[in-house]
């Protein structure tokens, strides 16, 4: 079965959406009637199944979304298993920033700058191999010192720690007024040809 235009539109909308898409949204965006949308949904579902695809249309609450066939869950879970978790949380990023720019530094020093406890953020960063223990500060209690790792450089695409941009360089960049969004396209030739009547040095 080859999907028609309405079904293609609906499939695209559901695929791209962040959350399940309800009937009201589908009829509003496509301009089609509820009956037609329902039939298109059936066609999408049928076509995915017929082709033996791993993706399937599934009703969730009052909406629809595309999910992988649960039978393939095991393979998909392998994707996430031995991989580092993707994104750094805000807390980790802040903690990492402080360590990167004041390394080697102690937990107390990081916490002083962040103003909150950093235990778990430091632990996460250690687990993800973004920071390492780099000795002890010769202070009462001899607190541990943290520094960044090779992995950290890799993650941020730098060859060398002293390639890390200085704070003032970034500040300067960020102080540049942001550019206006889009300018009208260029005259590219004839449109803007001004008159020559002011030629005073010809």
């Amino acid at each position, binding site marked *: 079965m080859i999907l028609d235009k309405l079904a293609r539109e609906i499939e*695209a909308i559901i*695929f*791209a*959406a*962040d*959350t399940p898409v309800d009937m009201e949204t589908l009829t509003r965006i496509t301009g089609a009637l509820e009956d037609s949308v329902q039939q298109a949904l059936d066609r999408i579902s049928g076509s995915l199944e017929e082709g033996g695809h791993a993706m399937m249309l599934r009703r969730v609450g009052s909406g629809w979304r*595309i999910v992988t066939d649960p039978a393939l869950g095991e393979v998909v879970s392998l994707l996430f298993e031995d991989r*580092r978790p*993707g*994104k*750094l*949380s*805000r807390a980790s*990023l*802040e903690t*990492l*920033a*402080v360590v*990167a*720019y004041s390394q080697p530094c102690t937990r107390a020093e990081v916490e002083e*700058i*962040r*103003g909150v406890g950093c235990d778990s953020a430091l632990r996460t960063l250690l687990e993800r191999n973004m920071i390492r223990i780099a000795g002890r500060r010769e202070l009462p209690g001899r607190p541990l010192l943290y520094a960044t790792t090779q992995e950290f450089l*890799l*993650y*941020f*695409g*730098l060859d060398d720690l002293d390639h*890390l*941009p200085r*704070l*003032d360089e*970034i*500040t*300067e960049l*960020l*102080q540049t007024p942001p550019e206006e969004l889009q*300018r*009208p396209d*260029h*005259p590219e*030739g*004839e449109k*803007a*040809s*001004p*008159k*020559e*009547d*002011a*030629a*005073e*040095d*010809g």
Partner: protein
Amino acid sequence: MSADTCRVTLELFEGPLDLLLYLIRRDELDIWDVPVAHVARQYLQYIRAARELNLDVASEYLVMAATLTSIKSRSLLPRRGEGDEDEDPRALLLRQLVLYRAFREVSGELREIENVWRDSFPGPGERGRWSRDTAPMDPGQASILDLVGALEELQADRLPPPPARFERPRMSLAECIVDIETSLKDRGPMGFRRLVGGNAGPERIIYYFLALLELAVRGRVVIRQTSPLGELTVAPSMAAAPKGAAPE
């Protein structure tokens, strides 16, 4: 050309090279063999018109004006001997034009690609990359801006403001004109070098030279040069009109 046309036009250009390419194209000239005198004349006309409106012409445009003038005059001046190892400014300009033209065209192609692929959407899993508060995950693809941004926010209310950043000096031509006129009025005729000041950088020299040309065009100064490549002597014109009068 009318003032408004010029204003609109100059704003539409992405810089002096863009303006030059426009002139070359408009007059159907050969980019590989640009008649510099002609192009320089057209170019200066644009700049002058913009300045008559008291528009602040970006310094890049003025530097290019000086370059064009220098290439033009170089062909008229006696050669300083064959051992002259200076890079040929004409070849440099040609390279700039050809390169910039190539990039301008490629940007056009990228625009077309953008128009197509901006309309292709990933699944929700990938959409995270639209979010601002997390760094992307691929090694080498994480953003240092995110890292530093986090630090900046932390420091915002704890530290004194960051040190004042270095501003690239942007002189205004109007200031140079006033300065020259004042100097001449106070101290009488003098050489260009003294007018500019002993340790002036290239930008200042260019600005003062442009200002001087402007004053000459307006009939407010007289410039003398007794020998080729000799020092320019600048004197206030006897017929100098009251300050601020139109060039006519």
